[in-house]
């Protein structure tokens, strides 16, 4: 199910703001003319088209505006949110404590908090995945993985 109508209208307003800001900042660049188009020429044109499209999107959803479909029906926001948090934690920790430990912790957290599978599976899978990825990236592809405080 896709949350349309009301959300489309809000999208339209956001795009409208992006269009106006972009158009304004394009005029701060050298616009040039039709004869000698400058760096601001095309972005300005694109921003104007975006404004028109945003208005069209808002207008097309104006009448049917009763749409009451929630953006995240029935707590479907939970797992994507947890996923994003796990991602952010990974990006934050990898520079601090290095690839091996971060990857191991990430796998455990993901499978425990988000998926809730059995501990035996978690232990085997996260150890296995960490080691295999380390071998692939470090030896086969020779990526200089961050070692963090252990390097």
């Amino acid at each position, binding site marked *: 199910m896709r949350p*349309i109508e009301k959300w489309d209208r809000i999208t339209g307003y956001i795009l409208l703001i992006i269009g106006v800001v*972009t158009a304004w900042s394009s005029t701060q660049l050298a616009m040039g003319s039709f004869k*000698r*188009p400058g760096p601001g020429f095309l972005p300005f044109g694109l921003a104007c*088209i*975006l404004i028109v499209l945003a208005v*069209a999107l808002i207008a097309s959803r104006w009448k049917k505006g009763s749409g009451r479909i929630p953006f995240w029906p029935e707590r479907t926001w939970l797992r994507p949110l947890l*996923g994003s948090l796990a*991602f952010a934690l990974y990006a934050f920790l990898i520079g601090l404590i290095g690839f091996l430990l971060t990857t191991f912790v990430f796998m455990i957290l993901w499978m425990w908090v988000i998926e809730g599978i059995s501990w035996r599976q978690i232990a085997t*899978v996260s150890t296995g995945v960490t080691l295999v990825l380390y071998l692939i990236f470090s030896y086969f592809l020779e990526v200089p993985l961050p070692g963090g405080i252990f390097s």
Partner: protein
Amino acid sequence: MGEIFNVFQGLANGFDLAFSLTNLSFALIGAILGTMVGILPGLGPSATIALLLPLSFKIGSPVTSIIMMAGIFYGAMYGGSTTSILVNIPGEAASVVTCIDGYQMALKGRAGPALGMAAIGSFVAGTIGVLGLTFVAPPLAEFALKFGPPEYFSLTLLGLVMATLLGGDSIVKGLIMIILGLLLGSIGLDPISGAIRFTWGFHMLQEGIDFVTLAMGMFGIGEILFNLERILKAELVTRKISHLWPSLKDWVDCKWPIVRGSFIGFLIGILPGGGAVISSLVSYAVEKRVAKNPDEFGKGAIQGVAGPESANNAAASASFIPLLTLGIPGNAAIAMIFAALLIQGVTPGPFLITEKPDVFWGVVASMYIGNVMLLILNLPMVGLWVQLLRVPYSILAPIIILFCCVGVFSVRNSVFDIWVMGIFGVVGYIFRKLALEPGPLILAFVLGPILERSIRQALLMSAGSPAIFFTRPISGTLMAALVLFIVFQIFMNRRKRRQME
């Protein structure tokens, strides 16, 4: 005659290259990965190629890395049908219609013939598609040598608009994604004057947004987050797969659907945005219309598997034609291959065949070989692949995310890029929820520099008169095609809406 001779000579050299041990192994890796992501629901060829873009820095040879990525793209067309038939979930977007009759066949105990016919049809059509690529691409590239900036502008515009309108259901939303992609692409150095645009004071943005980061975020992370909303569970209808080799009656039934599917797929595949998804839908509709007993469709008609599965393979091969001859990718997966070529320092376009014959003929020759590999992988070995459906998404998802993180890190050894990718991932997730397709955005991002350079050069040529796009014969024809296409699309949308009401 001389031209035909050149084709055969080029192909012979190409086979020489493609049969080298390295290239054969990477073709096999591509075929295996392609089949794998085709079978796994929730991971498509675009995301996979995006995931492997950092790898193309390491491979070093453009022929080898494109051979592998091409293999992933057309290999996914083979694998997709397996999941459609056995689980009733399309393993990959172009196999949606295969669910209809393929799953019904599996319920009736005819999973074997359905899988077999899908693989054989894919092979025949894939090979016809590559044959077409072999013979159509060289003359088309020669014709494209006549193109100047106005022609390039019109062609790119036509390609972008067609790709968007054929792919999605809302014209306005599709166009919005194109504009956003073009604007994102204009961040950083201006290609002509060297001025710095839209960096908002961030020094990291001066080089522009990196394609690998954008693609992996939008397609890798974004898709995972979107899939996390639901619980993807694959339940096999049957574990017993026998009679893979179709019976004589099946052959007779499928002979023409495969041939028709191949040609439909090839013709639609050449068009920008046409691609595999639409050709399989068209093929299904055609087969239903010409069938002797159309009532069978939806109840397990083997023609409904053979036709579309052939069409999507022919389309996959054909969609390399605009990339390798005009330098214009027609869909998101091909846009990733375009980016991989650029990473290797090869600019695809009309000069590719004459200036880098190794790249062109090597890749084309590998596609003949790849199709044979895929037939073997998907016909006798299909039982093995079915085991893959047992790997739960709960294990797959974190692994894909880890691949994205390390991949994007490896490009510049920068943790900052992981954060940027994460932001694009969240944006990609929200786009998907709003029914805004990220495909056109990626395509526009890639084509942005071509579009901007050509419009500005054309306007310099004409001393500021936009008439130049309409008065030159080739550009004028393309523009007329664009207008006709948009009018036709609006008309069709109206009719669809009226039918719905």
